[in-house]
């Protein structure tokens, strides 16, 4: 099989060796004079780490920024839920870390499906991020001497993860949020909370604004700008059950895709190995237990299938520490995709534990015996507390039960080295883009990417766009805004007028089952083909029989959900199609047809060392698959091996 590389995808990677590319870009970009910056308006959608960091930084520079979030406050964006930490190549531990090692760990961790140049830049910027956050007053963990502390995360053999107890994302987001609030106070950023972006507005092929719904009044608003930044997160909620917040959705990215932005590698989904198992059909979301727990927790199942004894009754000799057995070099700290598949394999082979038998143990017994309960409480207290709240079991006394769950999406809108999409003037930052994590993200790298993109990349590259492109005067009175707003209004009206029998949630749940069963931890051609057919049928039924109550002119959470699920019903099909076309196993994308004799993922570098970017061609027309070939010059292709 072969795919032609697309001339439409110019990744604009600067020349020179990988270590110099970012410097070369900064050397060559055009700047805008301080006094001229106020003439440019920039829209930032989403206020998580990427969005809040970008909006604050661009505001500081002097641009007129408008920031949007659907939550009631920008501080609630889902970055806040990240628990474990943020990576940086500071080498404070003197354990052999370097920018180069963080770079190669991340390329390898992503199973050689990320763009090398972007990953190198991410590793370089990681150091600045820690400096920036500390200066903002982020209370990272410290040693007794007052210097910063580190811990280890999966897929690495160094300690480079900075953390604030089990709530690192919260502290980093509050830092970015406070920087953003400072700019709001200074009049540089106008904040639009409880607003949902419904569509992107392009004029002559260039992104010039958005149409958003005021979720309190229902009013459809138009906002014009010279650049639009989507920082809208991932699409994990296409599975219904995930560790994402309930509001996380694909709508902004999907609407932009339908206006011309290519969607890259949607099949790359991260299934996180350590989440609290499902208890019943009422389950509305899944809760993560941080990967950092694997520093001290040991993963095991009984050696005997169906062993129903309580964990404490199973002697050491009858326990199978299957990660340590299969991967002696990394043990419990193998990357997420590897750990998840290993847990699924044990459960599928009837070694699972708990009521549902869809769980394995994460046991802190040995760590508590060796270090004492207080030390473990100090490191993970809030996670143990959360576990107890949800399960009514005390993890200081009995092992946690955990099972993999959808957590993060590596795929996203295609962007070039400037983080600009295939629509000029529209940039995509953070989880919403595809560029840095390949087919599997390493732990503690999402926070790093969001902040790198927002604080340190976009402020340079967005300025270059503004300085080099001719951008004629466009206001929200432009006819394109009226057209797009009218389309958005009609779409909402259609949802409200169906008056069918089934709730939006029931469709979302059914879609989630289809996705999890066929496009989840392992995938095969027959399953993916059947999923594509089922999703199309479900979508058709949705638009005939969904029940969205109420009106559009006030707060109506049913209507918000209806619009989001409608978009997931289109997006899920593309995800399955991408998974079907990628006939190899790579990172989080495991095709059963492509595995080694000992069940490890088998890549096909000859045919698939590329990014697949899908182009929207019209309603009910199959998207066109374009490719961007990936070259691995600095970090040569090799088989991932954590044994």
């Amino acid at each position, binding site marked *: 099989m072969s795919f032609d590389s697309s001339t439409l995808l110019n990744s604009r990677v600067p020349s020179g060796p990988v270590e110099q590319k970012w410097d070369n870009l900064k050397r060559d970009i055009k700047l805008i004079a301080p006094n001229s910056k106020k003439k440019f308006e920039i829209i930032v959608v989403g206020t998580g780490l990427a969005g809040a960091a970008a909006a604050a930084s661009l505001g500081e520079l002097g641009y007129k920024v408008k920031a949007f979030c659907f939550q*009631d406050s920008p501080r609630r964006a*889902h970055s806040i839920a990240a628990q474990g930490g943020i990576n940086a190549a500071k080498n404070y531990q003197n354990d052999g870390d370097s920018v180069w090692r963080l770079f190669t760990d991340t390329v390898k961790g992503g199973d050689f499906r990320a763009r090398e140049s972007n990953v190198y830049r991410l590793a370089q910027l990681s150091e600045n991020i820690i400096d920036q956050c500390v200066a903002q007053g982020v209370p990272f963990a*410290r040693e007794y001497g007052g210097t910063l502390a580190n811990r280890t995360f999966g897929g690495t053999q160094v300690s480079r993860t900075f953390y604030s107890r089990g709530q690192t994302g919260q502290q980093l987001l509050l830092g970015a949020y406070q920087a953003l609030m400072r700019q709001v106070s200074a009049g540089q950023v106008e904040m639009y909370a409880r607003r949902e972006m419904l569509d992107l507005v392009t004029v002559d092929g260039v992104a010039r604004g958005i149409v958003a719904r005021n979720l309190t009044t229902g009013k459809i608003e138009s906002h014009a700008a010279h650049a639009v930044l989507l920082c809208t997160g991932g699409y994990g909620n296409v599975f219904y059950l995930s560790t994402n917040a309930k509001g996380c959705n694909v709508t902004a990215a999907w609407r932009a895709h339908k206006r011309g932005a290519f969607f890259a590698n949607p099949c790359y989904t991260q299934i996180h190995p350590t989440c609290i198992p499902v208890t019943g059909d*009422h389950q509305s979301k899944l809760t993560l237990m941080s990967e950092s727990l694997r520093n001290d927790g040991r993963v095991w199942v009984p050696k005997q299938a169906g062993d129903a004894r309580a964990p404490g009754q199973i002697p050491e000799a009858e326990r199978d520490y299957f990660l340590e057995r299969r991967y002696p070099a990394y043990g419990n700290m193998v990357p997420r995709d590897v750990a998840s598949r290993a847990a699924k394999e044990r459960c599928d082979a009837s070694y699972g534990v708990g009521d549902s038998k869809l769980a394995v143990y994460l046991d802190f017994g040995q760590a508590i015996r060796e270090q004492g309960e207080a030390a473990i409480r100090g490191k993970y207290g809030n996670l143990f507390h959360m576990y107890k*709240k949800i399960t009514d079991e005390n993890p200081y006394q009995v092992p946690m039960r955990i099972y993999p769950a959808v957590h993060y999406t590596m795929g996203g809108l295609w962007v070039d080295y400037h983080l600009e999409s295939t629509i000029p003037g529209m940039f995509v930052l953070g989880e919403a883009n595809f560029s840095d994590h390949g087919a599997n993200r390493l732990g503690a790298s999402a926070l790093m990417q969001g902040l790198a993109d927002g604080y340190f990349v976009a402020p340079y590259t967005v300025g270059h766009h503004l300085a080099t492109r001719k951008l004629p005067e466009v206001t929200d009175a432009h006819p394109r805004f009226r057209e797009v707003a009218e389309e958005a209004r009609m779409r909402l009206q259609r949802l409200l007028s169906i008056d069918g029998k089934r709730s939006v949630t029931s469709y979302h749940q059914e879609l989630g089952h289809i996705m999890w069963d066929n496009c989840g931890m392992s995938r095969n051609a027959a399953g993916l083909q059947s999923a594509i057919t089922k999703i199309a049928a479900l979508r058709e039924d949705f638009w005939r029989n969904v029940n969205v109550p109420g009106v559009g002119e*006030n*707060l*109506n959470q049913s209507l918000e959900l209806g619009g989001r699920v409608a978009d997931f019903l289109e997006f899920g099909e593309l995800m399955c199609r991408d998974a079907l076309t990628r006939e190899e196993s790579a990172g989080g994308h495991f095709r059963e047809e492509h595995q080694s004799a000992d069940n490890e993922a088998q890549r096909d570098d000859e045919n698939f060392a590329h990014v697949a970017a899908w182009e929207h061609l019209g309603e009910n027309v199959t998207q066109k698959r374009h490719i961007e070939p990936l070259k691995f010059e600095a970090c040569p292709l090799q088989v991932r091996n954590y044994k």
Partner: protein
Amino acid sequence: MSHTTTGKSLNLNLRVWRQKDNASRGEFRDYKLAGISTEMSFLEMLDILNEQLLKQGEEPVNFDHDCREGICGSCSLMINGQAHGPDNGTTACQLHMRRFYDGQTIVIEPWRAKAFPVIRDLVVDRSAFDRIIQAGGYVSVRTGQAPEANSVPVPKNTQESSLDAAVCIGCGACVAACKNASAMLFVAAKVSHLAQLPQGEPERASRVLAMVGQMDREEFGNCTNTSECEAACPAEVSVTHIARLNREYAKALYGSPLSLEGQLLTSSGAGGD
């Protein structure tokens, strides 16, 4: 991923506050729910209620929620008169139905405070909190200006104590629980977080004056040291941070050249009488 529901089953009587919008009068409405599993979270119970209302042709109950793991601070329910319900150190989204008994009546209301107007049903407007942070709840450092992170050592105990305050999730339970609807614990958490760190030092005095001034302008009530806020706080932020706020405020007002700025305040002080 299909599972049968485990746990015991409850029948419940709900009294839920319904209000069409801020301009309309609200009222309690009674609903009966059957077969609620004790494994469910409180919000999952409300999801079931909403599916039931939809079938009956009544509009679902609107309520704020997002992460459902206790960290985003969106959920904001008075449950039987207690902010976030009966469990200590727990948001409504982390409260589980095993905490309730078969046949129980559960009263569910929005946060009630003048500074948090109701938008609809159980959803309130907490933007006053954002405006308090805008007034000074930050360190004025521009992107790119930061010195090397380890150049300023911070003692471990100081960092831990600062983080004890920084864990505030901004949910507003402290205001809802307070008979005066005071926001002192929220303001104290941010002031105490930044005042303890060397990075927060340069703006230490101006920050506390500006934030307290904004708190008063938002018409939150004064603090009378009843500590209801600490009892309700899902992040377990201690009222000792209010003591620190009062000390910081007094020092800023009387003990530094910045005291003239104190005249910006519209009321007589940070409370704590």
